[in-house]
């Protein structure tokens, strides 16, 4: 029977600016059957973590890039179907110690010190023996088979016209197994197959790999971790971070939410979270403070007639953070906002975000209050000018003034809000007024508002 050509699975282009990705998990292994569009692997890029669906149905014949490795966009990661899988066992040299993965090998090349870890190949690849007359032409199929099996075609006895190596010749050669003299050079070939992807190291190449100390374990940084690290450092190096905080009496919001919750859940299947109320009030307030929703671009101040509102979402494994963006949040009412937040949070956790979902934000809200914290100093997501922190709502004794001007102590639901702003653009007074207006909106929330 005819065997189909192998379908190559390549590192996808997850957005224009993304040039590489890290394999976080292979969902299928060599020999496994995979259906078209079924998840084949998970990758992590600077922007998003996502699942990669299989481009075709078939058996996974080769996996070329291992978990944890970072490779450029377009690099072949695996092959589905084709002859490679079936022929692979024949290509493996006998029981010689498994060579280091090609990528690791390549990575170590510059690290002379590390070289002794791997058994050095018996001898460097021999220079190609000059071809004999008539054997110089290698047909496309012979070239392909030779490259797949790491064979030098000039070593194969040819029976074609003028001694040319035919497809049958090379197939017979592979079936018969390599002669003893070939083994060494084939090992070299196997260790660095020509099809192997060019790796880039997950960690900064300039850092020496160090052995773990006693009681320590090492694990490679994921692309996301690296992205967060780079971004946080760059943000602190860029913006002049200042944080202001304000206390907000959330009693009205609490009461309205309790009322709306049933209706929203039964009618729309969505929970009106406090975050949705705060986001809604924030968007309204940003309207009056365009600089807080703006950015510095060179020596220009950029203001925007839209609010692309980012929400910091913790990923389920606790090992990452992503900031999906609700675009044109100024067009959403409370219900729309609640739905949008549920949607992006779910897609963030299911790794279904696209690069467009995580770019282009104009302001960000982070909500660490779920764990009871009452204050924080978040880092601005560049190139924005501010980030709002929301914290736990707690019942506190609170001094209120009744309509007669008399003070009394009441039990109120109080929440702290922080605005961390870039003092290069936003001054403390402006930030203070922003927080005051935001508080005012939340404290006077009417049932019919928003």
């Amino acid at each position, binding site marked *: *029977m005819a065997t189909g050509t192998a379908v190559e699975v390549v590192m996808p282009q997850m957005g224009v600016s993304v040039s590489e990705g890290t394999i976080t998990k292979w969902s299928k292994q060599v020999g496994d059957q995979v259906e078209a569009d079924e998840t084949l692997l998970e990758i992590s890029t600077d922007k998003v973590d996502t699942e990669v669906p299989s481009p075709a149905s078939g058996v996974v014949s080769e996996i070329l890039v291992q978990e944890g490795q970072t490779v450029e966009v377009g690099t072949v990661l695996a092959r589905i179907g084709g002859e490679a899988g079936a022929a692979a066992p024949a290509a493996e040299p006998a029981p010689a110690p498994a060579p280091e993965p090609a990528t690791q090998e390549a990575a170590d090349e510059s690290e002379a010190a590390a070289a002794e870890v791997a058994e050095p190949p018996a001898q460097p690849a021999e220079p190609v023996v000059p071809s004999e007359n008539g054997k110089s032409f290698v047909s496309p199929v012979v070239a392909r088979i030779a490259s797949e099996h790491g064979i030098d075609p000039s070593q194969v006895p040819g029976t074609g*016209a003028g001694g040319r190596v035919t497809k049958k010749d090379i197939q017979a050669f592979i079936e018969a197994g390599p002669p003893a003299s070939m083994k060494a050079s084939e090992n070299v070939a196997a260790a660095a197959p020509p099809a192997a992807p060019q790796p880039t190291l997950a960690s900064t190449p300039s850092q020496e790999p160090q052995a773990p100390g006693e009681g320590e374990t090492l694990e490679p940084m994921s692309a996301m971790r690296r992205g967060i690290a780079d971004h946080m450092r760059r943000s602190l190096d860029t913006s002049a971070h200042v944080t202001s905080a304000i206390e907000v009496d959330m009693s009205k919001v609490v009461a309205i939410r309790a009322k709306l919750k049933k209706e929203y859940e039964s009618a729309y299947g969505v929970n009106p979270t406090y975050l949705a109320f705060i986001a809604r009030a924030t968007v309204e307030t940003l309207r009056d403070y365009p600089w807080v929703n703006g950015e510095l671009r060179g020596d220009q101040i950029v203001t925007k007639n839209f609010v692309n509102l980012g929400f910091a979402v913790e990923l389920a494994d606790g090992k990452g953070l992503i900031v999906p963006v609700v675009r044109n949040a100024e067009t959403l009412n409370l219900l729309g906002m609640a739905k949008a937040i549920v949607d992006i949070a779910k897609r963030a956790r299911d790794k279904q975000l696209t690069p467009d979902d995580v770019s282009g934000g104009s302001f960000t809200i982070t909500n660490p209050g779920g764990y009871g914290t009452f204050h924080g100093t978040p880092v601005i997501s560049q190139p924005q000018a501010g980030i709002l922190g929301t914290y736990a709502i707690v019942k506190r004794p609170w001094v209120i003034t009744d309509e007669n001007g008399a003070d009394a102590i009441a039990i109120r639901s109080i929440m702290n809000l922080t605005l961390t702003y870039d003092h290069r653009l936003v001054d403390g007074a402006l930030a203070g007024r922003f927080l005051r207006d935001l508080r005012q909106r939340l404290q006077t929330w009417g049932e019919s508002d928003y």
Partner: protein
Amino acid sequence: MSEKTYLQAISDGLREEMRRDKRVFVLGEDVGVYGGAFKVTLGFQEEFGPWRVLDMPLSETAIMGGATGAAMMGLRPVAEMQFADFVSCAWDHLVTVAAKQRWRAGTPVPIVLRLPSGGGFSGGPFHSQNPESSFAHIPGLKCVCPATPEDAKGLITAAIEDPNPVLFFEHKHLYRRIKGEVPDERYVTPIGKARIHAEGEDVTVITWGAMVYTAEEAAKAVDASVEIVDLRTIMPWDKQAVLDSARKTSKVLVLHEDTRTGGFGGEIAATIAEEAFEDLDAPVRRLAAPDCPVPFSPVLEKAYIPQVDDVVRALKELIEY
């Protein structure tokens, strides 16, 4: 199942469709009283009457124009050119109107144009041609070239069912020479699906029509396992079957009776080169008639139409490459 000639299979398929569907009718020169130049429609006028089996004047333009109008008005004409060669007179209606109408206006144009084609009997330049590639090049037309009686019946049925103009190239040399088992019941052979005429491992011949049998004879004369792919229809054509076979054997001969330059074999060879390059162990070869009109002289005609010996030679060259 019963054994039938290629001609009888076409006739049976056509008659069955006329019995099933009153919209189906036949028109052409001498198709009625005379029963057709090759007797494909013998007895049709008696059975279906002169309004469904129309004897037309000696004008291919009128036949094609009439068929196009009838198809646009909802009928399903099966027009016959007495010889495929004469279709050039019908070019304008076929190519300018029938082929474009569906794309231009959305109107289905369910015409079947029966084209007795091919040489091998000293018919000379006007009665021997295989002009399929000219029409395969016209978007909107389908081209069918059956090789076996079974396919002839299944494909004439498919052609009549098809809402587009379908050119049905029936090879004259096969009419009474080729017999085969044909199912008695109605069946449809899909347009666009090739048939593996013979399975093999070492070298592939891609061909259609009468050349399937030339390839079959040649395969017996070489010491190798030859796969013969009968394309059955050349527009649409079964690219996948061709590529599968090319990838399997890595050596391909494309064989056709039409002339070489601009023949459909060039399209096939180019596709293999584009899509199966890394599976090739030899250049894709074409074997076709030379670029000149079909000669009368039996000697010259033999030199012109690819013969078994020519195919054997080409196969050997590929095998030994």
